[in-house]
């Protein structure tokens, strides 16, 4: 930018604002389809919370839900403690083959699986 083109330092701020407003007013408006496309792209790029996050947000959004959740968890815990301390039948006619509810000691199921070449020998 040459010295002739440079803006004088002592310009009135009100004049500067007026010039800026005039420039904005004279600019052609953004085409509506371009604006819509930019908005769509911005929405697509925005991080989308997972359904579980949304669910947890909706659950924690209500203050009273803490009380209800705590009461529910406490009731569940009581039931579990009672079940675990009670003599457990071989098969419960109502709830199915429950011998013991807690604790669950998971067997090493991952040991059943081995590395695979991922191939499929069939034509299907």
């Amino acid at each position, binding site marked *: 930018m040459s010295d002739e083109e440079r803006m004088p330092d002592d310009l009135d701020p009100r004049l500067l604002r007026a010039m800026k407003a005039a420039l904005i007013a004279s600019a052609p408006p953004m085409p509506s389809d371009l604006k819509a496309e930019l908005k769509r792209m911005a929405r697509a790029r925005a991080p989308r919370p997972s359904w579980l996050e949304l669910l947890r947000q909706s659950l924690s959004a209500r203050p009273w*839900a803490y009380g209800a959740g705590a009461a529910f968890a406490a009731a569940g815990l009581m039931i*579990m403690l009672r*079940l675990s301390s009670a003599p457990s039948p071989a098969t419960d006619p109502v709830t199915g083959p429950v011998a013991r509810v807690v604790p669950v000691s998971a067997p090493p199921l991952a040991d059943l699986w081995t590395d695979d070449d991922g191939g499929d020998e069939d034509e299907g």
Partner: protein
Amino acid sequence: MTVEMKMKAELLLSLMILAMPAAARSRARRSLPAPEALVLKALAGPATGYTGLMRVQMFRPGGKPKGVTVAVAALPGGRVRRETKMGRRKTAGLICVRDGRTASLSWPAQKRSWSGPDRIESPEAGLARLSALYELAVSTGGLVAKHTTWRVNLSVPGGRVRRSLWVDRASGLLLKSENYRPDGTLARRERFMKLALPSDPDASVFRMEPAAGTHPAASFVPGFPRWAPDGFMLVEASSSRVRYSDGAANVTVEVFPAQAGPRGTNSRTVKFAGRELKIAEDKEGYAIVTLVGSRFYVFFGDLPEDELVRMALSVEDGR
């Protein structure tokens, strides 16, 4: 023959050649069976017994595929035995037996066993469940374990294929299945490598006699699902969360009080037997949300939504 006649004959011949592929396609479409009939046949199972060896493969994004070999024996009437083979010596791992009334699991090496009433679903109910969730389409399926098949594609309403089933043209046996993630990548494949059909396996293989010293363990928790796919067992339980696994795939069930139900999730709704289920989807997979009694159940994990729905429908409001 005049030049004009020659030209007419050539034109006629050209038109016939052009029309032939269209006619062939039309004939092929006409000869395809209805997908609903094929699925019903596959769910009912063949009219004879069979034995075979299956390979189950799991495909993780960015990970090595994992596989397991399963020996299968079945008789008409719902009796099925699936025995996981371990290591080079093919020793018995997890054994699952369903006899039409009872489901039993046994792991001899771990001295563990589970047993209880099975949650039976009729073929018609199974077809209704699949038809409500997917659009069904059939095509020719090629050879699987030396058997000619029909391929049935199960697509979500948006059009993406979620599952593919290869059904034996002669017997109706499901010979191969593939599950796909929402992005279309392969998640799981199950296929017969060897098959003897018809076959008459001994009835004794469908009786589960726990070995001496075997102790029973938890398989189902009150208020949680009473059905899980073959090979899945309970590996984690708390008052509001249970998890099932077959060692490679996981399914988690979380419970919330009904007053604090979910909202704002992007989902579609389906109804079965008077119960409403919401199916939510994101890049990780699918989730099923349903209200049973005074509790909201959320099912999510490495299963297609039709199996998550079957698990959800097995929850009973008995509390």
